[in-house]
């Protein structure tokens, strides 16, 4: 509003002829030009180019138009069905765990606690560390034979699992590391959500004789709904397109047991099948959109209804 007013004032100072134009568009059109050019060069052109290249056999040296063959090939990839299921499992497991643990930690860290500020920052530290670094560190910690974790377990007479090297535990181990690393963000969002709830509600509830659990269920939980929506959307998007942690720990292995869509795509790129991997990226984009748009609408509608 104030911007419009200023522009109007400026316009008046110039010529009356231009006034109506500047009134309609808040800024003169040249003002949008730099951002528009950047958007065109770095987003619009590559996006449309990728649709084109996904329809070609592309060696970097030349391209050959082959219609939808890349898409057919990609869907007949034997790893893909596995990768698809793994992607969903990984996305929903990490997202669910971040919601539950993030909320629990946020409740703890908003209570009257000694060293609360310090503890809050400790929870956030893993977020600041490079994902690849985390992956390499955990690969060493969870080494089935020389790793710290299994060595400690062995001292108690427990034979630790193979973690990253056992086909049945690899994906969930990576998911657990992902949760550890990403929990700080979820906690932070929840802390902000909880702190924003007016204390009067809790006081009123206490007067009415509500216990701790009832206060949590009937006040905290419903009122942090916007925070929950944000955490779910952020962590689910992150989980569905996760790649770096998986690549740094197992590379999709052993065999293909921890492959997700993103790592299958990357392998096609590595192998030099550039058209095929571009088609994979288009598919990943569509899958993430197909899951996130309805989910986001659902979560936001709930928010409005409240």
């Amino acid at each position, binding site marked *: 509003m104030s911007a419009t007013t200023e522009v109007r004032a400026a316009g008046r100072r110039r010529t009356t002829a231009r006034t109506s134009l500047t009134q309609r568009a808040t800024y003169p059109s040249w003002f949008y030009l730099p951002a528009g050019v950047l958007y065109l060069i770095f987003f619009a052109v590559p996006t449309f180019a990728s649709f084109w290249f996904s329809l070609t056999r592309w060696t970097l040296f030349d391209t050959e138009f082959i219609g939808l063959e890349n898409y057919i090939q990609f869907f007949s990839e034997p790893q893909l069905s596995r990768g698809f299921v793994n992607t969903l499992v990984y996305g929903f497991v990490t997202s669910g765990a971040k919601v539950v643990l993030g909320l629990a930690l946020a409740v703890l860290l908003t209570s009257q606690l000694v060293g609360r500020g310090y503890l809050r920052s400790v929870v956030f530290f893993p977020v600041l560390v490079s994902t690849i670094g985390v992956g390499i560190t955990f690969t060493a910690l969870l080494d089935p034979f020389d790793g710290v974790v299994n060595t400690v377990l062995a001292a108690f007479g427990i034979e630790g699992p193979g973690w990253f090297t056992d*086909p049945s535990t690899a994906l969930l181990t990576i998911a657990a590391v992902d949760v550890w690393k990403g929990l700080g963000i979820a906690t932070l969002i929840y802390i902000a959500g909880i702190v924003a709830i007016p204390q009067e509600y809790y006081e009123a509830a206490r007067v009415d004789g509500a216990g701790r659990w009832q206060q949590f269920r009937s006040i905290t939980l419903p009122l942090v709904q916007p925070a929950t929506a944000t955490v779910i959307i952020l962590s689910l998007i992150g989980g569905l397109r996760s790649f770096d942690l998986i690549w740094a720990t197992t590379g999709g292995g052993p065999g293909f047991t921890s492959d997700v869509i993103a790592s299958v795509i990357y392998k096609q790129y590595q192998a030099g099948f550039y058209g095929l991997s571009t088609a994979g990226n288009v598919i990943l984009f569509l899958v993430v959109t197909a899951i996130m748009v309805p989910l986001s609408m659902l979560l936001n509608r709930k928010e409005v209804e409240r």
Partner: protein
Amino acid sequence: MSRATRHRVAVAAAAVPLLALAGCSSSGDDGGTTEITFLTTNDAPNPETADALIEAFEAEHPDISVSVEIRPGGTEGDNLIKTRLSTGEMADVFFYNSGSLLQALNPDSTLVELGDQEWVGSLTEEFVPVVSTDNGIYGAPLGASFAGGVVYNKRVYEDLGLTVPETWDEFMANNETIAAEGDGVAPVIQTYGETWTSQLFVLGDFANVTAVDPEWAEQYTAHQRFYADEPALLGFQHQQEVAEEGFFNEDFPSATFPDGARMVAEGEGAHYPMLSNVIQTILQNTPDAVDDIGFFALPATDAENTQATIWQPNAVYIPRSTEGAELEAAKEFVAFVNSDAGCDIQNELLPPAGPYAGTCEVLDSAPALLDDIQAYFDAGKTANALEFISPVKGPNLEQATVEVGSGIRTAEDAAAFYDQDVEKQAKQLGLEGW
């Protein structure tokens, strides 16, 4: 194989020097210095060899200065090479695989033809085709050839009174003995912490496939032969058999290539199906054990079909983007790699694990396992690895063989999967019949 080869190469040969020729404009117009660059891989001893070659080269050519560039190995390196070639940003000389990986670079349109160079005359007839197209020769060897088969610990064999097996059944019997009487020695070492190492049962068996069916590679390229059928299927089945007998080292899922080299050197394991240039890693990490290490080909079902599978050396190439004085300097550098001084450096830093493909000659000080490999050459019992005869190599063989070795997939299933996997590569190359 590409990955295995690459690693091997890197390990073994690596040393291509950086070529930075500094400005010597060919044979001197203005007396300035020509600067060129040399791109090699990051795994030891390649960077060391590059440095040594450059130092010696610059001493011989004061008007040229060479600077080294380092790249990652594996498929990451492939992409880097392709990207730099296609954008015209390639180093003036670069070190890369020969065979099918070279063919994927489209050499006729990206590389400088070197057929008129003096060193070409010294190349072995096995090597020439793997750096050539129909239109000419593109690369000079750096490092020696090497064999893929079983690297074994001779002390373990002596202690248990074993002899080198010539058939698969003899090999399994030896494993049986080692498991029973070896006092904890693992009969067979596998290192799936680095997945490329899992491919040797299949890739190292290829000379045996050729012995049974000499047409195999050609027919494979034409989409007429399959891994899902014998004889090629045997490589997968052998791996499954060894895995099911429990002959692997306990930590095979997470052990790495250097772990495997150490285990066979120190006698913690008896057999390591690997490329013979693992000896360079052993030389670096456990030099005292070098003479305890021997080599034999992966045994075929019949002794008469047992042959050693040979990998040709990697080579140095010049891209088309290098022109004028830099091109002359680059050619000088490529020639230097195979000169007497260059050979001395190769022998010192990249001790050969097989015969050389060019002018260089093996010294008496070469590792003992070289004699074992030479014996196969003398007997005419060698064949090039598949990647040097056919351009068809799927990207997922190493995952498939990890699955077989880990019991996730059966041999038959994995072979059928791999047959499907190579289709993409064949289509990408535009081969007929796919």
